[in-house]
Each structure stands twice: as C-alpha cells, then as structure tokens.
C-alpha cells in the first residue's frame, strides 16, 4: 500500500510537471476561425490581479469591464463584430505579468491589452508589448513614467499623480488654509512621487507643511506617526494614499484628538463607511452622485447588474471608460493591432463617465487637460463641494 502511494505521488508530480510544459505550449493557437456569416469576435486582453494583495481592484475592474462589454455588444459591437475579453491573473507580480504579456503577444486574436495594475507589474511588461506591436492600455497607471518613459504602445486615461497633487495643493491654498500636516504612503511608484509633487507645488504657492510622515500602506497602527505629524498644530491634514489606509488614518487622527479638516481618502467602500471620515474633502474625477445623465445611467446599470455593490467608485468608472475608449478606437482605426493604435491617435471626444469627453494628447498619450472636482463626504456619499 505504501509503495503504491509513493508511486502515485511520483506519477502525480511528473504529471503536474508535464502539465506545466503542456499548458505553456498550448496557449498560442486560440484565435478563432470565424464561421460563415457570423462576424469574428474582437478580443481584448486584461492583465490584472484576480487573486492576492491587489485582488480588490482586479475584481472592481472586472465588474465594470463585463458591464461595458455587455452594453457594447447589445449595441452591435464594433461594426457588427462582437467584443470579448480574455482575463489573465497576474497578481500584479512581474514574475507573472511578463509571461502574461508574452502570452497575449503570441495570441494573434488579441488586439489590445488592458493593465496591469501596479507599476512594478506594468512597466516590466511594456517592452514586450512594444516588441509585439500590441497596444498596452494602462488605464489605471497614474505613474507619469508609464507613458513618459514608455513607447508609442503605452497609453493611459488615468490622471497622473503629479497633476492630482498639484491640484490638491492649489485647492487647499485657495481655501485660505495656511498650514497642513501630511502623511503619505511610502511606495516608490505612487506615494513618494505624489508627495514630491504636492510639496513642490505647496512651496511654490506658499502653503506651509508643518510635518510630513511616510507611512506603510500595510501597517495597521499609525498613531505614533500621526501624533508627530500634527504636533505643529496644522490647520488641516492631508493624507496622500488610497481608501483603506485613509480610513485607518482618519479614524486614528480623530482618536488622537485632531480636529482640523481632512483632505484625502477615496470613493471606496471602506472609506465611505468609516464614521470618522465624514466631512473629508477630496479632488475627484468621477462623482457617483453627479447629475450628469451619462454618469447616472452608468451608475444605474452597474447597480442593477451588481445589486450587492454599495458603491460605484472611480476604479469601476475608469475601467468602464477604458473599454469604451478601446471600442471607439477600434471603430475608428480597425480591428487589428495596427488599426487600434491608429484609432488611439485619432479618436476625439469619446464619451466618458469620468471626464465627460476624452481626447488624447498624442505626445503624452494621456488625456488632454484632465479636470478634478472638489467633493466632500456627506452621509457616506461623496457629493460635489462648492464651499
């Protein structure tokens, strides 16, 4: 019996390894041969985290993508060609996003790829997409270097971190606030460059930073940093980060007795539901409660398809826009890799739930003059703020 088990184990391991090789080699020939009469399907690839640390964002993207694909196909797809997505889980890990990029490049049916999420996964994949002449649409990449140091195949509709935090510094100054305490995430691809942009603009407009503290997004307890950050009694507090860490920060900031206005946070479930976050002010691109008809119909459709989701956030909105931009480009330039690239260079005024309308600046390969709207968190919802 023991012998048998041993043999079984050896066989299963050998089988697993063979499977590994087989699965690797079986990837390339997925392109569909179009049947008679029916028009061929257009495939977009998605390289994102479906599992692991960043799975939260991967799931949000997926929900919005699926909704957008449904709507596009209901309206006849791309000139009659239906649209479909091919998802590959990268865990936002370069060890996986690089092979995923090769897989997409080798799959001739894929004409564009969305993603990846973090810079550490997106930028290592960029040279591969460039070599494969496959457009890499990092719709979520706020790191300016993604496009600035990329090739003509890297495009993004995300506002850059430097633009966001320049705006934030200006806005705070305009509100008559003279001094701020700052905390920012100690991450190379986001928090640190964002803080640098904020600081240089604050210095320029004469906004005093009484103290700035780098914090880790994975930490749970920020009190020692915050005690120090508010020691100089700043009039307001700025946190440069995401929703989950901002909700911990704002709660603990109130717990140490700080009462000034909180600038920061994000339209995200855990932040919106945090009691201490009430009254937080943030520059937003997408406002769920906006009265704009396009936004309204998107929010309604989204909640209908996903009744369990309490919030529709800028992550979903960004992904929804991204798919529509890709479809518009394919309609304009054609449903080949070269056609899509041509389309990206030519599209104008694509309807958007984030920006109203999207037109690319062909030199930066980002959205022309993106605007931010001041919003305030009231009763768990972000609303436009004119105070």
């Amino acid at each position, binding site marked *: 019996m023991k012998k048998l*088990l041993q043999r079984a*184990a*050896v066989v299963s391991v050998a089988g*697993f*390894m063979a499977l*590994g090789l087989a*699965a*690797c*080699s079986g*990837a390339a020939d997925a392109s569909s041969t179009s049947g008679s009469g029916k028009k061929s399907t257009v495939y977009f690839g998605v390289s994102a985290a479906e*599992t692991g*640390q960043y*799975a*939260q964002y*991967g*799931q949000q993207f997926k929900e919005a993508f699926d909704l957008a694909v449904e709507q596009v196909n209901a309206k006849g797809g791309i000139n009659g060609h239906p649209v479909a997505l091919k998802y*590959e*889980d990268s865990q936002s*890990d370069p*060890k*996986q996003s*690089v*092979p995923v*990029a*090769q897989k997409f*490049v*080798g799959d001739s049916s894929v004409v564009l790829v969305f993603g990846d999420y973090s*810079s*550490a996964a997106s*930028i*290592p994949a960029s*040279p*591969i997409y460039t*070599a494969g002449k496959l457009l890499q649409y990092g719709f979520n990449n706020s790191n300016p*270097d993604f496009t600035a*140091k990329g090739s003509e195949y890297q495009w993004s509709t995300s506002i850059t971190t430097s633009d966001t935090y320049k705006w934030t510094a200006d806005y705070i100054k305009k509100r008559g606030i003279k001094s701020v305490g700052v905390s920012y995430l*100690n*991450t*190379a*691809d986001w928090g*640190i460059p964002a803080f640098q942009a904020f600081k240089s603009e604050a210095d320029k407009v004469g906004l005093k930073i009484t103290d700035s503290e*780098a*914090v*880790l997004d*994975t930490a*749970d*307890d920020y*009190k*020692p*940093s915050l*005690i120090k950050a508010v020691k100089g009694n700043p009039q307001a507090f700025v946190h440069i980060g995401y*929703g989950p860490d901002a*909700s911990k920060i704002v709660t603990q900031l109130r*717990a140490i*007795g700080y009462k000034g206005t909180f600038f920061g946070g994000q339209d*995200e479930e*855990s932040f919106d*539901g*945090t*009691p201490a976050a009430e009254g937080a002010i943030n520059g937003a691109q997408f406002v769920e409660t906006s009265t704009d008809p396009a936004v309204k119909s998107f929010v309604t459709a989204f909640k209908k398809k996903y009744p369990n989701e309490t919030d529709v956030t800028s992550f979903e909105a960004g992904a929804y826009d991204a798919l529509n931009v890709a479809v518009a480009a394919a309609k304009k330039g054609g449903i080949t890799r070269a056609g899509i690239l041509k389309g990206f260079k030519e599209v104008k005024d694509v309807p958007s739930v984030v920006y109203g309308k999207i037109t690319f600046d062909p030199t930066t390969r980002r959205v022309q003059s993106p605007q931010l709207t001041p919003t305030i968190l009231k009763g768990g919802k972000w609303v436009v703020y004119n105070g």
Partner: protein
Amino acid sequence: MLDTLIAGVLRGNVYALGAVGISLVFGVMNVVNFAQFSFFGLGAMLTWFFVARLGLSFWLALPLVLVVCAALGLIINAAVVRPLAKFLPLAAMLSTYAVSLILDNTSQAAFGANSRVFPQVLQTSNLHVGNMRFGTADVVMLGITAGVMIVMSLFLKYGKVGRAIRATAQDQEAALQMGIPVALVQNLSFVIASALGGLAGIFIALYVGVADPTSGLETGMTAFVAATLGGLGSLVGAVIGGFVLGILESFGIYFFGGSADQIIVFVILIAVLIIRPGGLLGKVPLISSEPLTGTFLGKGRPFRIPRWVWPAALAVAAVIVPLIGNDYVLSTGTQVLVYAIIASGFTITAGQAGVMALGQAGPIAIGAYTSALITLYLHVSFWVALPLAGLAAALIASILASPIWGVKGHYISIATLGIGIVIVAVIQLIVPLGVQGIPWPKIGDTVLFTAQDFYFIDLGVLVLTLLVMWRIRRSHLGRVISSVGADEVAALASGVRVRDYKALAFAISAFFAGIGGSLLAHQYTYIDTSIFSMLMSLVVVTIVILGGVNLPYGAVVGSLILIGGLEALRFTDELRIVVYGLVLILVVRFRPGGILVRNS
C-alpha cells in the same frame, strides 16, 4: 510623550494577544505556523460577515467565530501539520504556508477582496487620557490578554492536560512513553491557538476599523516577532514581548518616522537575540540540533540520478524547449531559470549548513539595485555588472548578518527574515523611487531583449551555478560546511569554526541571489522595492524544500513546479492559488523530504 507611550501600550496589547497563540503552537509542535496569520484575517472577516451581513449580535457571533476557527484548526492539524511535524518540522512549516494560501484565497473568494468597514461592536473611542482617545474595546482586549495569559499559565501549571502539554513541549518521545496521548495534546494546542488567532483577529480589526481577508498579516508578522522576542514557547514571554515591542516601536516611529517601522522592529529583535539568543524568557538550549534541518539530513537519501539524465536534461532545456516553445513558454522559462539559480545557490545555506534563512529577498534586491544603478549611471556593461551584483550582495548581506550566527534554531530563521526585510526597507530609504530604463544586455551592437535571449542567458548562468555548487560540494570546504549542518556539536568538538562556516555558506548563497536579482532587473527594465517582498523569500525557501533541501539540482525541479506550476494552473482562474496550495500540500505530504529524495 505620554500620548506616544499610551499608543505604544495599545499597540503592544494587540501584539501580545496575537503572540500568545503563536507561542503555544510552537512550544508543543516545534513548528512555525504560517497559517496562524490567516486566522487573524479569517476571524475578522467571519465576524464582519456574521455581524454586518447576517445581522447577528456580536455576542452570538463571537463564540461562532471561535468555534469555526477552532474546527478549522483541528482539521488543518490532523490532516496536514501533525503527520509531518513529528519527523519533519521543515515540511510541516512548508505545508502551513500552503494552508495559509488556501485559507486566504478561499476567504477572498467567499467574502470578496474588498476592504470592509468593521462593525463597531464595542466602543473604540469613548475614553481618553489627555488627548489620546481609546475605547471599551481596548480595555476589553487588555482584559482578555491578561485573562488568557493567567488562565493558560494556571492551566499549564496545574491542569492535568496542561501538564501534558508542557511535557509534550519538553520531550515528545519521553511524553509518549509516559503514556501521554501526544496526538490529542497537539490537536488541543492547535485548536486553542487557532481560536486565539481568530479572537486576536477580531480585536485587531476592531482596533484598526477596517478588515479584509489578508488583514492582520502585517500585525501577525509583528506578533510573531514579539513571540520570538519573548522567547518562543513561553506565554508570559509572548505577552512581555508584545508590550516591549509595541512601546519601543511606538517611540521608534515617533523619532525616525513610519518608513523606518520594519527596520525598528527587526533591529530590536536582532539586538535582543544577540544578547539573549533564546529571547527574553526563553531558555537557550545547551545542545541544540538545528530543529529545522538536523533531523532532515538523516531521513532519506537522494535518488540516484543515472548519468545519462544530465546531458538529456541539458538537451531538453537548451535545444528542445527553445525549438518547440513559443515566446510565452520561454518567458515563463526565464522566470523558472532565474529562481532555480537563486534557489540552487541557497541550498548550501539551507541544506549543507543547516540554516533555514528566510530573507533571501534582501540579497536579491541588493543584486538587482547594484546592477541596475551601475549600468544606468556608471554605464558599466551588463556582463561586468552581473558578477559585481553577486559580489555586492554577498558582501553587504554578510556584513549585516555577521552578528547573528551565534543564534540557533528557529531564531536564526526569524533573524534572517528580519535581515532580508531590513535590507529592502533601507534600499527604499536610499532609492525612494522606482528605477526605470535599466538597459538590456548587449553583445557587441546586438541588443538582447527577447524572451529567447533571456532564456539562453539564464540557462547559461544556471549551468554555471550548478557546476560551481557541485564543485563546492565535492571540495574539502563543502564537506566541512556539510558537517556543520549535519551535527553542529560534533563539528564544533572537532574544531570546526561553526559560525564562520555558516557565514561563508550564507555569503555564497547571497552571491547567487544577487546574480538572480541582476538577471531579473535587466529583464524587467524596471524595479521597485515592492517586488522584493517577504513572499519572494518564501518562494525561494519553498522551492528549496520542494526539490530537496540539500540538492542544488533539486532546486531546478522545485522551481519548475513552483514557478512553472503557477502558469500551468491558469485554466482554473480564480481558484488557481487554492489548487496551487493543494498541490503543494500533496507533494509535501507524500514526498516530505523533497521530490528527489527517497522516503526512508
């Protein structure tokens, strides 16, 4: 100052509660239990689910969560940990890592990956001292920590089962001969620890205010450090360790900033271990076989590999795979090869010298950054930068690790884990932004950048690595290092300078880690510190254990399964990691000594 002190006490309280469960399992099973961290996240998510989704009252949800965690703990111990822990703590440790992968990803699939607002089941800010607010929750948690500690101490001292637990902790086999039902005792300890883990998870989430399936990992890690600091296996030590760490960390962050957090934690740990190698309250074993590997070498011998396999394997790797594989296969191949290089170099530390170092991401990062920066700014050629990266990694890692070689057993694993994390945190301070535009290798004017180019470069380096490792093993030096791992006391008695040889083995491993880091950096063309995570260190260790801890070529097989397997499982999508964990458990269960090692 008072504010910072109170913040430190509150923080220490969380660590103390987390550390008690970790210390308990370790004392009885002698296993580092990574699954304990998952129970923090699971406890939090279950409570969120019962209270926020199902609308149960907290006082009903609390026992439910404890029962679920306890039951899961029982299953995990009976099915996975105990069968391995008896003979092979190392394999058991690996399987707990697999279990934690499964738990985290199942929880993510069941509850969603979103961060959730944790229901305020107890007041969290209704009291204050000066400006510092805290709440009933903190007081209750303090009470529970004290209660658990007192009850557990009395139970362990006077209770019949408690004494059986202690006897098992002291000497399993003697306890078995005295008629103590060791299996039952171990199951019980695991169940108690799992329930405590769930409980700690609830309070961590209450304290923090938000929860997600992987929350508590960071706190759990620090709690683990606290348990080590106090002395693994000592409950009072765990509590003291928790408070000491919480308070020192709090002041450390106040003076040096949050970005220095991990540096502070591990510098404290390493400083304590240098002065007291067994932790604050732990006993220093007089004669300690390395508990992680000492038993390992005795069990099982490697399969004899027929001579023809080597040229055949080389032919497959160098000719057949590039011929029939497309770029996707080759690019997966590059990752397999690089990790094989790193892991193969690591076998001399993990296998021969018997030091299960857990922080290889540190030297990998040193190699990657050295190579990236000198090619970018000093315009050194890649071919020169590659060996320099290895040398820099060996040099810097050795200097940083030099004080710890007197530390023994599991403590050295935690200490090296700390060194790895500190190295990456320091790099983040020196080079805060990501490094982009790292040049591709060149031969003459030909730029090498395709998957195929990197595949051949990596393959060449791997072959060299294996040759070097083989030469070292056959040399006098290799045999001396092996003697250190096989029986440290005997080696010491024979006049071998054990500490120096461990350090040398570590330096050799760091050299190859640095080489691997350089290869990754030039292929990715972009690096930032998020790449060199604790997960990366764990992957390296797992590869080595999987292939056979003492076999450089086993690392190649381990890498093929672990790195290649991740790609091979793409057909299951969301369940990929769960299946991956299950496969890992099965492999470890049936080949506990490594795939290429015969069971004894």
